[in-house]
């Protein structure tokens, strides 16, 4: 029981990190980025290929995250060049189109067949009260919490963070104040791209190296982001870990277990129905 819960925590940590990226993108850049996990998967696959070619894990991981950041930056550049004036619906549609393009590129670059996935921290385990805990799970949970905390501090305490918030809330005013909109936007894309690659690297050993299914991890990430109502980073982390935990516990049940990765849908439905009890009118619409 506890064992499977802890296995779920690894997934949970990755969902949380991806979810935080989704929230940051939505808040700072105004894009519901359906391609978030695919960007990470692209980076992760670069790592798998390099590692398979005999390069050590650490430099391979560095190259992979850099690739993800680079791809994200390119997408961000495209988004800010062509869609800076577009509404959220158009931007989200563009994100879906980007996801498809990334998937096609991924299949082309890495082939359709699954890859062998190297463990992040292979074989390092320790036992607490009879429960075996892998170092990977500890890294996943502390890592995602640390990412959320760091981002929160960055956004609330640093000058760049304040500028970013200004940019997201009043883009035109912010630009008139001389805030370099495009540079910051592309920066956010790149940073979340790098974090996504790390998150996918953490979860890949338990999911297998299938490009499509790793890219579809956007669904639990979106569920986590919804738990944070696309605002709160803390709630997103808690939500992501919660979903992972739930999935882990579901493996215990023979009847629910096989369908555990469909659980995010129930979470999404429940959250939406609960959080939108009252009518809200969008000023712009």
């Amino acid at each position, binding site marked *: 029981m506890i064992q499977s819960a802890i296995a779920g925590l690894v997934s949970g940590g990755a969902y949380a990190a991806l979810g935080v990226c989704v929230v940051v993108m939505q808040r700072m850049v105004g894009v519901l980025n*359906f391609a978030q996990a695919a960007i990470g998967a692209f980076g992760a696959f670069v790592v798998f290929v390099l590692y398979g070619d005999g390069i050590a894990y650490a430099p391979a991981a560095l190259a992979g995250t850099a690739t993800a950041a680079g791809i994200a930056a390119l997408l961000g550049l495209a988004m800010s060049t062509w869609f800076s004036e577009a509404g959220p*619906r158009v931007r989200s549609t563009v994100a*879906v189109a980007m996801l498809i393009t990334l998937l*096609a590129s991924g299949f082309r670059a890495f082939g359709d067949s699954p890859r062998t996935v190297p463990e992040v921290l292979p074989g390092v385990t320790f036992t607490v009260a009879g429960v075996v805990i892998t170092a990977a799970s500890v890294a996943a949970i502390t890592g995602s919490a640390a990412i959320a905390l760091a981002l929160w501090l960055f956004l609330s305490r640093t000058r760049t963070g304040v500028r970013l918030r200004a940019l997201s809330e009043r883009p035109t005013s912010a630009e008139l104040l001389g805030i370099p909109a495009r540079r910051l936007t592309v920066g956010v894309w790149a940073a979340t791209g790098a974090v996504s690659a790390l998150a996918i690297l953490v979860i890949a050993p338990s999911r297998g190296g299938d490009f499509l299914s790793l890219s*579809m991890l956007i669904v639990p990430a979106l*569920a986590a982001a919804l738990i944070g109502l696309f605002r709160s980073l803390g709630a997103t982390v808690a939500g992501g870990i919660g979903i992972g935990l739930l999935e882990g516990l579901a493996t215990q049940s023979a009847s629910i277990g096989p369908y555990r990765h469909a659980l995010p849908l129930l979470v999404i*439905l429940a959250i939406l129905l609960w959080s939108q009890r009252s009518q809200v*009118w969008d000023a712009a619409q």
Partner: protein
Amino acid sequence: MRLNRPSLALAVLAVLAVAGAAFLLSSFWLFLATSAAISAIVARSVGIVTGQAGMISLCQLSFAAVGAWVVARFNLHGVPVPFLLQILIGGLAALPFGILIGLPALRLRGINLAVVTLGFAVAADIYLSRKSFPGIDTLTSVRPPAPLDEPRAYFLLCWGAFVLVSILLAVAGRSRVGSAWLAVRHSERATGAMGLSVARTKLTAFAVSAFVAGLSGGLLAGQVGLLTPQNFAPLGSLVTFAVAVMVGAQYAEGAALAGVLTAFLPELLRRLSLPLDVADFVFGLGAVDVLRRGHGGIAAQGRDKLERRRLKGALALAGARPAGRLPPPSAGRGVDAAPASLVGARLVRASPGGRPVLAVRGLTVRFGEVVALDAVDLTVEPGIVSALIGPNGAGKSTLVDAVTGFIPRYEGSIMVDGVPLDGLPVHRRVRSGVRRTFQQDRTVPNLTVGQYVRLAAGHHLPAAEVAEALEFLDCPAADYPISAVDVGSRRLVEVAGALAARPKVLLLDEPAAGLAEAESSLLARRIADVPGRFGCAVLLIEHDMAHVQAASSVVTVLDFGQVIADGAPRDVLEHRTVVAAYLGEEVAV
């Protein structure tokens, strides 16, 4: 968009070509052409949700899977239901899924809906990969009965289904339901202000779309016989969505193009010995490119071009004034020349005992620490035009928002014709007789002027009444597309629509903003005529004092959320505190 003779001829030609193709194509190409028809139906279903109602749906193939599952199930158990009825039942079975998935939209926000649909696509895929389709374990394939077991007949069935669906949806598109979809896509606020439930409008779009997608699933079951979950994978739904955006699948020709591309592009790539992923790549980039240009999908661009040509022709023929501008009063069409057909026929609605038609009592609205309205009392008597004035930020628009329900949280009470509105959602308030217009243009550009007025009226409206409301304000003719009308006139069309609804009270939020002085003064006189002509009281918000004096008989002044004066226009406008509020304290003292 009206179907003119050349495009009708083209459509007939296309149908004949398809029918002829049935006898010319080899079985391989016939199979692909059948797939194209089925994909076209799915694309059209995306067109409803995305192209018409402006939401993102990423699970259309999952809806199709429901339809396919039902047909496979019928087939496995040999249930004696005619095959075509099975397909129809498959579509109906997908409908509740559409409603369930659209349910979170009941409380608005379109983007969240995209999240739900993707979640559903993945969940459905997990379920199907585990359970698969009925009949897969025993390799019982779906066999349509004779004569449909013949590929040519099945091909004609699928294209026939597509044509039928397209025609029915085109008819629906011109009805109130279709107009409402376009309205909700353009502006949720405007939709609510027309007395339409935003939630129900979105939900209908989702339900109809799921039904259509479900039909396509049933047809696919009959085509391929043995279904696999890969037929309906989430990636397929994503690609379907991108293709639909690229082609403009809310139009039949766009959906047909989508079907042809989806079915034949991979085959073309195979023949060129190119990898098949390239197709998805093309669709992804194609969608981005279409969005970047911002003129809609391929079919929408084509229709725009035709429409512009038609308009140009019409204008050249008429040699007339450019689309809808109020002519200056000197043109001899002043107030007196206004069409008088119904003057006198509709007298002021009698309110028993002189009951105010709008009564606002102790209305307080807070935005955090800011008190936007502070215990405001306001009464609009029947049969007159009241004006509400005040400097910028005084709370005038906030009052309109609160009365019409766009700000649900307030203290105090609001009654229209003696009926309390508190706690009601926007569309219910509107239906109980209070209408509003907006400061910014919120007409629906994809509708014609006449369609807009009919939609706003909220009930069936004879052409004469549409024309009457339009003529009253010198609006462009009913068959003009709103997208071809200038912004000033669009705001008049909005007022005409609100008047056509025959409300008890009409709240006009700066209707003259953006009009030239001559037009503004004409509008003022028309507004003064509204109670006599349309039997409704008016609350006019305006900055232009000449306009206020010309149009209204009572003025209320608001400053910093409080009523500082009210009474006859002349008295109020000379009031010390009013002058001070407008010109600043120093001047008055």
